[in-house]
């Protein structure tokens, strides 16, 4: 199976990756140009160790992997399920699998993260480059120190890297260049196959992402293996990238090192630079928005955790789009942008994305139905009684213990569903005009037109109908997800799908 090596650089990269993860969790498939499923090998690059966005992304990935690998794959096959269908792999996992892995497999949990991380949280850029020890020989004119002074401001030199690059990509390029020495990058030349692809996600107006993208690209194009030899396969890799242009603003804060007013000029400058100096990229996706939501100005750290934004979700679809494109169709290179349908005075829905929405709307709606169904059934003693009165719970031997929060089988799913729901609900809250799922979610929330929208009874009915057709171990999460995937799918197609119904 081909792999998509994805590099999410900086905060925006992490947020888009998280959205991609949510789409994949809901069952949106990651397919290659031949329609074959691809594995996703994500890597988050961010020196800001405690960046809230990055941590959220990493948590999402970890939960995804947990649900997928521990509760679905380990329980054995037999239940075709759309939810969490894409494999998300880590480098450590790949290294363990690879026969000729580079060095001993690392201990510990997969964390999907690499790059320079200042664990001590103390180092400044000046300390990273040993600025204070640059030549002080006046006879020689202190040329290098003067050069650094000519290229970097005092603020740059004094920037603490624990907070990322604070909108200074010129600093980031030097620091992130050290990613080349990371185990993951060193492994890549050995892991990468010709059918694999690489995708980079970054913003252009920030610090880490803006710096990391061209650095990574240059590193990939100059890739060498661990023996120091050129890695031609990797160097010739099909590389796509999403460059996120400004789509949010920040509250004015004179004390903050980040000035949202500079987003656009910086973007303009960087775009002008990219045009001539970026290096070869096969497909470049641009996304941004003029109607920019303003966030609190918390440029670094764990408090930098802005509400999820539809742009990030839409940006994530670029990954799916890139993966599915025929390799020969990129041209040199292919530049993409995204159009949406927006009707004045009407809420914007995912259907406004056009064909892209087709691959998203159904699984996401199913995921939403599942989440609301389970949440609703477990919300009161009466509903619980009703749930356990259903044939599918009885026949499937799902006992009360299965659905408890402490249940090792159900708890990860429940947690992920809440993370997923929060993320998507936040997008809607972020922009009141945005309706991600049209009227679907409203129906599921049972607060609108009861005539069209399925209720718990409808779902139970559909699931009961399916249950008898399933063969496999009872009391498993896989069985539950399959029941709900198919049941919600049938309901979606029956009630909402405006396209030709697709059979399960």
């Amino acid at each position, binding site marked *: 199976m081909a792999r998509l090596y994805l590099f999410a650089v900086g905060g925006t990269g992490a947020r888009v990756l998280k959205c991609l993860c949510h789409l994949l969790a809901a069952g949106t498939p990651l397919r290659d140009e031949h329609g074959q499923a691809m594995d996703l090998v994500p890597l988050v690059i961010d020196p800001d160790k405690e960046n809230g966005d990055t941590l959220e992304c990493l948590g999402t990935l970890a939960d995804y992997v947990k649900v997928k690998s521990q509760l679905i794959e380990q329980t054995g096959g037999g239940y075709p399920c759309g939810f969490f269908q894409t494999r998300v792999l880590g480098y450590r996992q790949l290294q363990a699998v690879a026969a000729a892995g580079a060095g001993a497999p690392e201990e510990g949990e997969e964390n999907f993260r690499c790059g320079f991380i200042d664990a001590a949280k103390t180092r400044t850029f000046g300390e990273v480059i040993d600025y204070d020890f640059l030549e002080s020989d006046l006879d020689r004119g202190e040329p290098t120190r003067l*050069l650094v002074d000519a290229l970097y401001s005092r603020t740059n030199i004094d920037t603490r890297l624990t907070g990322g690059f604070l909108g200074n990509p010129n600093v980031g390029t030097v620091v992130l260049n050290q990613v080349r020495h990371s185990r993951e990058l060193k492994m890549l030349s050995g892991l990468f196959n010709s059918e694999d692809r690489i995708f980079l996600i970054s913003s252009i107006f920030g610090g880490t992402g803006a710096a990391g993208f061209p650095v990574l690209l240059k590193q990939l194009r100059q890739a060498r293996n661990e023996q120091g030899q050129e890695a031609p396969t990797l160097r010739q890799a099909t590389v796509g990238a999403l460059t996120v242009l400004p789509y949010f603003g920040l509250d004015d804060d004179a004390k903050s090192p980040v000035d949202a007013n500079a987003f656009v*000029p910086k973007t303009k400058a960087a775009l002008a630079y990219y045009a001539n100096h970026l290096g070869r990229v096969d497909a470049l996706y641009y996304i941004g928005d003029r109607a920019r939501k303003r966030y609190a100005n918390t440029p670094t750290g764990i408090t930098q955790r802005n509400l999820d934004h539809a742009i990030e979700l839409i940006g994530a679809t670029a990954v799916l789009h890139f993966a599915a494109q025929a390799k020969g169709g990129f041209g040199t290179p292919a*530049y993409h942008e995204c159009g949406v349908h927006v009707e004045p005075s009407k809420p914007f829905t995912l259907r406004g994305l056009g064909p892209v929405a087709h691959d998203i709307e159904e699984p996401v709606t199913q995921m939403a139905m599942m989440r609301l169904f389970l949440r609703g059934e477990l919300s009161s003693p009466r509903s619980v009684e009703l749930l356990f009165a259903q044939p599918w719970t009885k026949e499937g031997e799902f006992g009360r213990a299965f659905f408890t929060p402490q249940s090792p089988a159900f708890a990860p799913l429940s947690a992920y569903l809440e993370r997923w729901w929060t993320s998507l609900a936040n997008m809607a809250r972020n922009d009141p005009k945005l309706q991600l799922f049209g009227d679907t979610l409203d129906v599921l929330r049972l607060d609108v037109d009861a005539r069209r929208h399925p209720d718990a009874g409808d779902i139970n009915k559909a699931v009961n109908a399916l249950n008898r057709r399933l063969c496999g171990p009872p009391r498993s999460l896989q069985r539950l997800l399959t029941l709900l995937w198919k049941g919600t799918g049938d309901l979606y197609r029956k009630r909402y799908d405006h396209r030709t119904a697709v059979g399960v």
Partner: protein
Amino acid sequence: MPTPFTLLSIATARETERSGWHRRDAGAYDAAYANAIEEPVATQPDRLLAAIPSPFGRLHGFDVAFGFLSEPNRPVEGESVFHASVSQCLDAMELVFNWQTHLMCGAKLALVRWHPSQELDRLKKGRPGHAVLAEALELYFGQDTAIGAHVREDGLWLIAAEEGTHRSALVVASPLTIAAPAPEAAALAAQIDLRMPGRKYVYFSTTVPLSRRPPAFQAYMRALFRLRQGALTRGCERMFTYVNRVVSTASVAQALARFTNANYVQLVDPSDGLPIAVHGVHLPTSAPSGDVDEEVATSPRRIRVDRPGVTPLPVMLVDHVTSTGQHDMSFKAPASDARPVADRVLPDLKRRYPFLIAADLFEDQIIRVPYALNTAAFLLPAASKDVTASFLPPVRRAYLEYFDETSIPTRVRFRPLDGAGVACDIDVPLVHGSVTLSKSYYPTPQLPSAGRIVDADVDLIAFPMMRPAKMEDGRPVAAFGDLSAFLLVELERSQAAHVPWRSDLAFYTSTPAPDGERFALQPIVDRIGIQERTKKATPSYTGSKMFHLDRPLPTAIELVLTEENGRKTRALLCPAARPQPVGSAAFDIAIDFGTTNTFIALGRRRGDGRAPDVLPLAFTGGSEPTLALHAPNQSGQPIVAHADKLANHEFVPLGLGTGRYTLPTRTAVAERPDGHAQRLFADINVAFFLQRDAVRAGAEVVTTHLKWMRRAETATIDRVRLFLREMLHLVRARILQQGGDPRESTLIWFWPLSFTTYLRNTLERLWREEAVAVLGVDASAVGSMTESAAPFYYHHARARLVSDKPVLSIDIGGGSTDVVFFERQTPRFGTSFNFAGNALWGDGFNLVRGPSDRNGIVDWALPRVNDTLSRLDSPIQLHAREILSPLTTSLESSEDAVNLCFAVDEQVKFTQQLATEPVIKLMILLHFSAVIFHCAQVMRLRKLRRPEILCFSGYGSKSLDVLDPSSGKRHLGEQALRLFDVVYDHWDRLADVAVADDPASADAIIGIARELPSRGSLQILLADRLKEATCEGGILGAALGNALRDTPEPFVYLGGADDTLYERDRVVSYEELERCPSIKPDVAANFRRFIAVFLGFADRYEPFDVPIGTVADHRTRLWIQVSETLELGLERRLKSEEGREERMSETLFFYPLIDKLFRISQTLKP
């Protein structure tokens, strides 16, 4: 109609016909896309310049900014971050453009080269962090073709600001924009106040489009690309496009036309001398510009100068007024600027243009002296009326570069300040109006801007304070024989000896500026002599230092005080004397360089042929050539008293000719004790003070007896030369004061007939050399006359003598008596002998001088003088005692002692007292009679007519007043006639009378003489100014036209037989005298015959109040031991002659009498 979709984009135009992800037909989001994005304002360039993900992102940032502003629809001017960035980059280019100007202006800028291979290697081998940096740079050199290739080829150069040993980056080379500013450039430029030449703002502080920059710079940018197309144009394409867009060729056509290589110099790496390049193109910079902004060139703040040739006029900078005269409370004039005025850079415009600040005109400290100042002698600020102390002008020399020194009294003022301070104000005239600069001084200043008052007990005396100048083309130029001498006096308040000097002088002269040329004040460093005259270790603790310049009076004298810590304080003293054109009047100068006294007379020649008006050399009130820094009548101050004293003793006395120090003066010099008489004033000077002040024991050495120097006495010759030189400088000053031209002068000097040839020749040489050097005359203008002849002309003029009468002129000096006989105004003969005042008042032939052996007159006189003194008023007594103090403090010769008494004759009535003592009068009568007798004998032998008139002159003739106070000296005339009668009418008889050692052998002659009848009196003319007679007579005689050539025929009558009358050049030598044994006995006999005649007339001496008994008392003393005393005299004479082979220069007749007179004086001792 298809449904319109909206692009998720930040561009303004977002309509699209496609939904979802789709390929963008226009390709990448490039500069054109970016250019279409509206950006908010108020973004700092630094944000932008950090946005590009490259270590060289900053360089790209500027490039990108140029790209945006290159768009045709973009406004050239604006406040966007791109406008600001482009402006900063242009500032960097202007810094390159103005590189030479900034260096010339003293900006601490350095050019540093960064060599990639060398530096990257060093970094990789360095610390881990350096390797991180190196890897990033290397990555981008490899991938960033716009940067990497050119950096590898040219390296990168940087412009750094230097602060001590630290350098800070200002500008870095950029392959994209040629140059780019460093991030901290703006702050750094503000910190070091690096301003655009000709403009007011600091680099990198203001957004200015290229179109509003100086045309020369616009042209530079255009020309840079125009002349160096190719690599540079391609590499810096966006900048090139911007420049082409903003600067049209037409707008800078004029400046472009001036673009030649001569306008530019290459930027060069100082480490290897190689040109700095961008894209392989050597980068030019503007040659230092002399362009002056019109705004400055017409500034009303330019000073209005007095001096010629000051172009451009410097701007006067003061706080709150800019270079161009704008009131700006934020403008602050520099407190100091070490650069020459011409090299300065206006702080507000950063344009090289001369300017002055207060510190240029004010000294940091001010000198205060404890006396009122002489505003007549020096150009000083007007003094306060109540002056116990004065401030010297704290004006720097720079003032004189622009303003005439005569403006000091009107433009410089002092104001008292509270706290014992003083403020000095200087009014500086401007092109429009004026500005008053002020500086405060306090004993202990509290504010940094205030100066300290430095007290100094120092005084200055100068000679001659006049500025003679020849006029050439209507301008005064230096004259001739120029000398300026300055006596610096310092009173050390400390009682410790050997305190080092604190004060010093420096001199500055102005070069006469031809039309259009710049006035220049230059230090005098050559032809200057400095000598500590009185060491400060002497008991007075007062030191004097002599400064001698062989050039005219300097324009300015700088008094420099150096404190123990080395700190110096200066005061500018400008002599008030204005250039004084040399007049055309001609003067005859006569100088009687006498044995005892010297006298000078000046005769202003008339144009009508009449005799000149002859006047003694004297400086009337207001014309004294010696002037002091202290005002007259300031003697209450110790330093002034010391200065006055030193001026009188070591220099030309203050008030010479108007007060205590007048001519004639004693022929004497004063020297510093440990020196050699080589430099006038520095080593030696005329001792005007002698017989007027006490000699300062240990501080000076006085030498008299200059005239009769011997061949081997070279030191004496030097003394005489310098004595004559000082006298001639006085003469020169006086002639110039009186509108005369010293070069038109004639100089007459006088010599006694008894001078040896050596002496005469030596003095003649000295006179000529000094007169030529000091007066500028030809050697032919220097003539001489015998001391014998000159008085005749004096009397001739004064007494209206009938010219045909035979006249015997007798000049009795201090050491010699000179006699000339005139008949029909023609000198017929002359003779001279060393029998003058010294014979009366001297020590005879005594070689040992001491109280017990001195002339008895001294011992007789001292108690009487003291007694008289004691009855005098205090001030007069004090002065007289001071003059007479040598009598008690040192061993003066008897002659000098008597001269001291004559010096206070007015106070102690010395002459009157002498007249009361018959013995003294007897001595004088003997002296007079012997002179007449000897003259009569010579004339008889020369077969000349007897004189009808006897003219007396010379200081030695003063004694005649003691003897005969009658008008016309009738009694003396009778005595003279008696003696002539004896010699002319009776000598044949008397000469046959034998005389022997036995006093009784005199009786025969005594008897004959006693019987001779008295038949009248010879007319005697005694010069009313005894000493002056020689000089005046010399001038008058010269005016008659024959005196100089009609030197009287000199004769020497040894005094024996008739055949001992010789023409001067045929006199026997001392050796020959020994071979003629009859001469000395004959002389002795002749002498005894004279004594006998004198005794024979004794009963006729009653008019002289010389009792016959007194004469009788000394008869034996006069008669005996004549031969012995003759021998003694010969021996003494021989000592002063050059050798025994020398011809005898005088008669032997007086030798016995010299001893007799001394011995008679001994009888006066108590």
